[in-house]
């Protein structure tokens, strides 16, 4: 079982990496299924209204958890696997596992905090949700680190089309890198002593699964014939076994105990463990305590109620204060463009958990985690960086990968007319628009503009850019390609609400190419006289 678990973990971790790096190669159904497995983004998206399609999988996951236990944590969770890997690495360095206690009240507190934060829409739950944390680890740390580590190979690899090293620049964003580095170091230190401490102390998803599993069905049980070798106790990554008793509130059903039991007396069976069966989710079993059912239960109940009360109070207070503090009331202006599908700033900043799926999937690499461009509510959430790249007209990838409903899916045609920003052209002396100032042709902006919002008109000897803002969707390609190094004359300003624009082609349907009506005979159908051997008839050619 432990082996099967490792295989599953490996598969799922690879799958997660794939989802994070595959760009456009995956279908909506696969992404939807993947999203449905991560409980908090999935629930948030369901309540948000856009992600209800795959909720059946989420419900199935919860039912399965009630029956089989926290198999998500042990078999699927990428962050859980990362901890397992880190702890194995620690074993290589000969660090002996020790007992780091699970702080279960903290876990419950965080669970409630997460739920309330999600319900009331303050968006900071992303800092607690394990999946979002893992996403930031991948995008903020793993991908840049891998790019950096492989960069000596770039001269060789980049001559092929397959594995391309984009260089640190394409992915590195200071804050998320250092945040992830600190997080991963902390995780390493803790995992060295107790692999699943995070899962039972900080992870809200783990807390939720534990609550469900408490009334669970299939459980690992100990026979009375246990000679008490304590091997299971030592191996247990979540410190759930104490003197031969299993605390199901912290057990992640990893089967490590079953694997190491020398007398094969640990069994998975139906029913509830007689000892500590209703072990509370909020108190911890003191090490060495001999089971006295009633005492524990009543103690658990009391503290549970106390917990609920204090947590609720704290959460309400936190929410009440955090919304204005995060600047989530009435956002009229934002500092950097939001990805398409965000609808408006309030929807986006309250729902985005900063899992970085959109960022790491963005094919043109225009999405970058924000620092303070969009205020406190926007920290680490995606923004468009027109310096680095632009939003590709033929792409709607980000709108399809959001697990938490912060980005609404937009079919390509709709995405193309959704404005995420709007263009401004400054041809005064403050900037340096090449054709206006140097009187030479340039036209980079208009050349790249996919909507016709920027176009060229003849001004004296040169063509100069002009703007039709009604057609601008804010893709930022004009700003990106503008060859001016400092003080670009053309800039795209973000929009806090994403309106629909007009399509130039729709509004000018009668546009006919001027040359076609000009009647060059070459364009008329000459099939009829081609039999007449016009082998070298100069008249048919314009040259």
């Amino acid at each position, binding site marked *: 079982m432990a082996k099967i678990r490792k295989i599953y973990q490996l598969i799922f971790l690879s799958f997660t990496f794939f989802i994070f790096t595959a760009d456009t190669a995956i279908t909506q159904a696969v992404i939807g299924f993947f999203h449905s497995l991560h409980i908090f983004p999935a629930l948030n998206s369901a309540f948000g209204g856009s992600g209800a399609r795959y909720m059946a999988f989420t419900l199935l996951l919860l039912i399965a958890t009630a029956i089989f236990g926290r198999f998500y944590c042990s078999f699927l969770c990428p962050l859980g696997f990362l901890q397992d890997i880190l702890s194995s690495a620690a074993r290589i360095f000969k660090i002996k596992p020790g007992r780091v206690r699970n702080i279960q009240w903290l876990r419950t507190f965080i669970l409630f905090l997460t739920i309330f934060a999600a319900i009331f829409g303050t968006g900071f739950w992303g800092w607690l949700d394990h999946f979002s944390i893992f996403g930031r680890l991948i995008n903020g740390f793993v991908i840049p680190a891998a790019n950096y580590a492989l960069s000596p190979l770039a001269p060789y690899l980049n001559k092929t089309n397959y594995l391309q090293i984009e260089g640190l620049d394409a992915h590195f964003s200071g804050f998320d890198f250092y945040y992830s580095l600190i997080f991963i170091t902390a995780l390493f230190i803790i995992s060295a002593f107790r692999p699943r401490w995070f899962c039972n102390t900080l992870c809200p998803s783990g807390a939720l699964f534990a609550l469900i599993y408490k009334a669970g069905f299939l459980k690992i049980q100990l026979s009375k014939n246990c000679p008490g070798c304590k091997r299971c106790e030592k191996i247990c990554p979540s410190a759930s076994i104490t003197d031969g008793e299993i605390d199901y509130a912290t057990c992640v059903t990893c089967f490590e105990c079953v694997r190491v039991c020398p007398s094969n007396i640990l069994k998975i069976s139906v029913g509830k463990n007689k000892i500590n069966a209703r072990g509370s989710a909020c108190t911890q079993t003191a090490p060495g305590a001999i089971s006295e059912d009633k005492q524990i239960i009543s103690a658990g109940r009391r503290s549970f109620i106390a917990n609920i009360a204090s947590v609720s109070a704290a959460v309400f207070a936190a929410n009440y204060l955090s919304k204005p503090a995060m600047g989530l009331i009435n956002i009229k202006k934002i500092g950097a463009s939001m990805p398409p599908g965000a609808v408006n700033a309030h929807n986006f900043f309250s729902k985005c958990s900063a899992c970085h799926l959109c960022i790491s999937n963005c094919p043109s690499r225009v999405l970058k985690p924000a620092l303070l461009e969009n205020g406190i509510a926007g920290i680490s959430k995606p923004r468009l960086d027109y310096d680095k790249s632009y939003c590709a007209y033929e792409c709607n990838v980000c709108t399809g990968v959001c697990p938490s409903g912060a980005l609404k899916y937009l079919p390509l045609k709709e995405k193309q007319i959704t404005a995420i920003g709007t263009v401004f052209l400054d041809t005064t002396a403050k900037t340096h628009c090449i054709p206006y100032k140097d009187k030479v*042709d340039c036209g980079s902006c208009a050349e790249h503009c996919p909507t016709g919002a920027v176009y*060229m008109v003849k001004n004296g000897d040169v063509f100069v850019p002009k703007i039709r803002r009604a057609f601008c969707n804010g893709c930022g390609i004009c700003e990106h390609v503008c060859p001016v190094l400092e003080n670009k004359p053309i800039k795209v300003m973000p929009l806090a609400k994403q309106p629909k624009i007009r399509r130039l082609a729709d509004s000018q349907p009668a546009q006919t190419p001027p040359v076609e009506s000009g009647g060059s005979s070459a364009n008329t159908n000459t099939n009829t006289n081609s039999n007449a051997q016009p082998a070298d008839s100069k008249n048919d050619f314009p*040259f």
Partner: protein
Amino acid sequence: MSLTRREFLKLGLSAGVALLANPFSNLLFAEENKVKDPDMIGVRNGTAVEMFESGIKEFGGMSRFVKKDQTVVVKPNIGWAKTPAEGANTQPELVAKIIEHAYKAGAKKVYVFDNTCNGWQECYKTSGIEKAAREANATVLAANKVETYKKREIKGNKLKEVMVNQLYLEADVVINVPVLKHHGGATMTSALKNLMGVVWDRRFYHRNGLHECIAEFAGLRKPDLTIIDAYQVMTQNGPRGLSKADVALRRMQIIGTDMVALDTAAAKILEFDPLKINHIPMAEKLGIGTMNLDKLAIKRITV
């Protein structure tokens, strides 16, 4: 490999038979009847592939340019993530046909690439060129990495130093396959402008005088053969185009070696004045080619 006498005779005999049986062999033997090789071929009224087939035949066949075991670069315009029908890129069938001819002429390896304006993967895929070229056995490479470029000095007025795609410099044969389009910045994009796709920093061009840089770069290495795809041309809103109304069917192709002459002819297809497309006269001044089409032997074919 050593040949015995018998083998040698067999080989010679079969080669002779093949030569005689070859439907094009009359071209070989009719050499002395020709007054002069054409400098430029204009073809019209067919599909891009048909026009190329008959055009290159008139021009002496691909074997005139590609010899055995040579490496060939085919440089189409793959600048935009747009479909072939939208006319922003070279026709994929034409690219495939050129590759096929190059291999028939004995090419060892054919490379296809372009430094794209949109993301290279999207451009290569949507344009249909990657697929068509792969199916024709060409090696399609990305050109978005600075590692694949080499620094070259140019004694130009504006362009002093330029990062050029290594393959473009090192290949034995370069075949330039632009698509003819209107261009917001350079007025027209064709043979000369298409070479911006082998340069790393295009923004430098825009900053320092687009036309001059285009003209000055052309002298670094002239493509051995240029085929202008004017099957459908973008007459306005180029080079990207906004809708299908920007594209007109012209069903033409120009084949030649003189990029300046080719672009002069191409400008006329778009009904532009070639003298007003600054990089063409500039290139003529630099001795890249001639704008005087009357001096040239132009063979005009209607398919």
